[in-house]
């Protein structure tokens, strides 16, 4: 498979064109806005917990950006539904990268991880747990 076909493989384009879990939850139990200022990718994440206040019952995202950022966030929605907040807040990014399964340059890696980072910030905020290193102030960037 050529480098080209690999990066824009069918599943990526499908998630980009038909994003899963696209929308807004209002009210949401957890919410954060994320931005990749270098590219202008934007993602907002909304989570509703089940009655146990821990299981992710529903998760949605809205935003705009490149195919990689939007498709990876769409894949993430399918990956985390039904899992617990504690587990997802510390999810190994490799699990998502394995699902995306394309070669990513450092610049595009940021696009691919925007959704996951934003989701983690939303969960930490909702749970009142401290944000991991490097994420302080992450969702205070102004979305345009």
């Amino acid at each position, binding site marked *: 498979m050529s480098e080209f076909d690999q990066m*824009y493989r069918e599943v990526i384009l499908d998630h980009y064109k038909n994003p899963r879990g696209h929308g807004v939850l209002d009210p949401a139990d957890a919410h954060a806005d994320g931005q990749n200022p270098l*590219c*202008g990718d934007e993602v907002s994440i909304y989570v509703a917990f089940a009655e146990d206040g821990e299981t992710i019952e529903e998760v949605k995202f809205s935003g705009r*950006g490149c*195919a*990689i950022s939007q498709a990876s966030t769409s894949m993430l929605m399918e990956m985390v539904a039904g899992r617990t907040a504690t587990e997802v807040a510390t999810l190994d990014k490799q699990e998502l990268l394995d699902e995306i399964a394309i070669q990513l340059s450092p610049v*595009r890696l940021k*696009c691919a991880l925007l959704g996951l980072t934003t989701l983690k910030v939303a969960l930490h905020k909702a749970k009142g747990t401290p944000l991991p290193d490097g994420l302080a102030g992450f969702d205070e960037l102004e979305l*345009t």
Partner: protein
Amino acid sequence: MAVTVTKKLDAHVVRADFPIFEQEIHGKPLAFLDSAASAQKPHQMMEAMTAFYSTSYANVHRGVYVLAERATAALEGAREKVRAVLNAPDVREIIFVRNATEAINLVAYSWGMNNLGPGDLVVVTELEHHSNFVPWQYVAGKTGAQLAMIPLDEQGELDLSSLDAIAAKGNVKVVAIGHVSNSLGTINPVEKIAAWAHAQGGILMLDAAQSAPHLAVDVQALGADFVAISGHKMCGPSGVGTLWGRAELLLAMEPFLMGGHMISSVRFDKTTWGELPHKFEAGTAPMAEAVGFGAAIDYLTTVGFDAITAHEHELTEYALGRMSEIPGITLYGPPAERRSGIVSFNIDGVHPHDVAQILDMNGVAIRAGHHCCQPLMQKLGVAATNRASFYLYTVQEEIDQLVDGLATVRKVFA
């Protein structure tokens, strides 16, 4: 130096001077359409730097030995070349800095911090690169001056009918504008805006980083008070740029950076500043870079700025013509007559990063993003655009390669 002098520029001949084009990218010929970000380098420029390091290198000024004298002569020779290319009246007005951004910061700090206050206006434009926007926003905030903006019209040109309303808001102290927009290619009517600034009792800071590579910039004819340029956009090395300022203003200003070389005398209780340009050149200068910059200016003037401008105009017309036929494309910016060699565009439903990525796989290098112009992107209502930009070595085949690549983009995202 061995440059073929022709009245009409033959880009295929010019291109042979640029070793970067001797390679393929992803198995395709390199179509480099990102010269507005930084220009490629002719071998003549690189050889001038190598020769300087090989035969004339030592720290400049004050040294009494042969090498220090040679190095000083080379640096000062480069300064004279910059003076000549800008038609500046006095070589003491040519200050070497790292880049145009540093040149603008020098003015914003050294002039702005001491000349601005409440009731004063700092006028910028919606087209500005962050380099001529952020320093002024910061200094206005620090001094209590107000930041006012010259708006854009639908074609991406400055709306000068707004000037009277701006003047009514306060004392216009400085007008900071770009000569050519790095995002849209718009060539701004600098003479008119300079005359207006002076009529208000203000000064004009001109960011010429995007014009000086492509047009003859005459600081006196334009009526500017400060002009910033970057060497790397003019086929010179990175790490060197120039601030030109009117001597009268520079003499009255305090230094920007303090340290070695910029002094007249240093005592425990008091330091006095050196003469121009040294007052603004603290520390060891970018010596080899300045020499390379001088050689790049020689290269450009030998080809001829009129020939470069005409060549880029031809390419821009060709590109706008071919690209306007692409379904789903939006082209930004003014008509070719009032535009430098820059074409900004978007393809419906495809983020610029994806466009640029697919083009890269076709050997085409363009820039995708906000081009350090977030206020402009907000105005255009987009997060980012794609930008193709041309220079003296750009050939029509590269634009064809771009158009072919855009067909692939549309196919992938159909």
